[in-house]
């Protein structure tokens, strides 16, 4: 048993898991707070990655690219909320799913029109391109550690804000009872717009951060979206703790699967989901 190899794969699994955690937090934020299931969440991950690609090409620096990409994504998210999501608050899940499905079709085609169908890569910034030695022969890329830490910090901060600040309280009030919150003076319209923008920007930032270690290609949004769904199903909707546990579990299963059992790697994650469903249909931490 090659323990060092296992360690590296475990770190990879955790890193992937934390990336998923960031994305799933955004998803669960929007669903938990606004009751909207947004299939286009993955599209924002893709948009983030492509923005990182273009801005890095323009400015030569990934960090600048991210600083530019965040406001762009926020504005885009805000626009989508004002134009489309605003109609979905009173609609059922089927309508939400179909409308956001339409959005995916548009986003995917726009991406092809603007960037084309070839996969792209984003270079790791020099300052983070080193490796941390963990033995005589093996070392672990610094960027992946950076990525893990940032994802954890971002998602964790969001959770803290929701739980422990005044703004967070208003957000939770609005989630629990929209009409009541409004009559108490909470401006639900702007709050919804903010929550949605932040939620999808979390996915966008995940895309920007992941761009150097994952390929940037068409359809990357849906791939990650569906895995995020699996995370949320396993962890339970509306639970940040659940999203964390689910994401790390999936990250590990996926990476171990690819390395040790490549034939079943792509279905291993779903097998995990099936197992959880048998035991806890509402997810590990979901409210029944």
């Amino acid at each position, binding site marked *: 048993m090659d323990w060092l190899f296992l360690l590296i794969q475990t770190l990879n699994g955790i890193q992937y898991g934390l990336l998923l955690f960031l994305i799933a937090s955004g998803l669960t934020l929007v*669903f938990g707070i606004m009751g909207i*299931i947004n299939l286009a969440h993955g599209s924002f991950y893709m948009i983030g990655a492509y923005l990182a690609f273009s801005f890095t090409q323009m400015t030569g620096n990934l960090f600048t690219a991210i600083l530019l990409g965040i406001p762009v994504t926020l504005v885009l998210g805000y626009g989508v909320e004002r134009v*489309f999501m605003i*109609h979905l608050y009173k*609609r059922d*899940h*089927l*309508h939400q*799913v*179909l*409308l956001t*499905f*339409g*959005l*995916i*079709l*548009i*986003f*995917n*085609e*726009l991406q*092809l*029109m603007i960037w084309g169908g070839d996969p792209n890569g984003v270079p790791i910034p020099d300052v983070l391109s080193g490796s941390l030695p963990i033995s005589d022969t093996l070392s672990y890329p610094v960027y992946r550690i950076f990525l893990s830490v940032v994802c954890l910090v971002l998602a964790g901060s969001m959770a803290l804000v929701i739980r422990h600040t005044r703004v967070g309280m208003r957000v939770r009030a609005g989630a629990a009872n929209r009409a009541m919150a409004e009559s108490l003076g909470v401006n639900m319209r702007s709050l919804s717009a903010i929550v949605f923008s932040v939620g999808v920007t979390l996915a966008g930032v995940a895309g920007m951060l992941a761009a150097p270690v994952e390929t940037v290609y068409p359809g990357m949004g*849906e791939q990650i979206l*569906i895995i995020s*769904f*699996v995370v*949320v*199903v396993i962890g339970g*909707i509306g639970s940040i703790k659940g999203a964390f546990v689910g994401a790390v579990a999936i990250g590990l299963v996926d990476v171990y699967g690819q390395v040790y059992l490549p034939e079943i790697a*792509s*279905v291993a994650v*779903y097998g995990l*989901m*099936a197992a959880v*469903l*048998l035991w806890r*249909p*509402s*997810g590990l931490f979901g409210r029944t």
Partner: protein
Amino acid sequence: MPSRNVLSALAVLVLALAVVPMIGDKYWIKLATRMIVLGIFAMSLDLLVGYTGLVSFGHAAFFGLSGYVLHLVSPEDAAANMAWALPVCLGVTALAALVIGALSVRTKGVYFIMVTLAFAQMLFYFFHDSDLAGGSDGAYIYFKPIFALGSVVLVDLGGSAVLFYFSLVSLIVLYAGLVMVLRAPFGKVIQGIKVNEHRMQALGFNTYLYKLVSFVIAGTIAGYAGFLFASIDGFVSPELLGWQESGIALVMVILGGMGTLFGPVIGAIALLGVEELFRDRALFGFIAAHWQILMGGFVICIVLFFANGLGGLLVKIAGRQSEER
């Protein structure tokens, strides 16, 4: 049971369709066949969405799986005999629906949507990543299925007109079958589950069981549609199982009118027709190459402005459904 007027309107539609192979060329016959087969697919989804209240975003899994099974059982040098090939396709599909359904139906609401999407994607990746059936390139069915008893060939789906009429007759038979099932005790129960599942449990119904049976029936009919669809072009690819296919099926259901059975068939016809329009350069210029944008916009417009669908419109115009006791 739809009212007389609605049935008459549907009869007219069927007659209009029946004329197509007599006046159109192969391209139009194939298009019309696709419309009918996707109509069957959408109709099966309506059983789930419109009558049982189960929004599945993974229904294409059964549609595509059946096509792949047909490829796998079809010899390279001869046509498969529907007499056994069709039951095999349907059997495999039904089994898949049973397993996936048994797990998925344990969940409710949004979870169900996500879980069905995930399981369908699992099947997509299985066929996409493995060598079993051509991987991402897809695979061919060199000879379209025939129906033969002994050495006598009764039906050869290789002829496009034959496949068209076979599909049309299938649609009518399946429609009638579903109407019958919905009038039967089973149909009453699933409709009750859609309206108030908890109450149905309180009345003594094991709702899990009924939902599962509905899921399996719907999945099997989707498999039948998949069998036919694979026969149109003699080609299967992983996209048939993909989330886009499942999403488009849901759009057809909504566009045509959820909970009407015939509505989704009209939705399928309409959607394919709209797609033809969007791809037409003469009408849409350079956007036609990127018609998915137009389609996305169309889907959004349907959801925002037209959520009751065409079937709902038809019912309103033609008169209320006869309220039987």
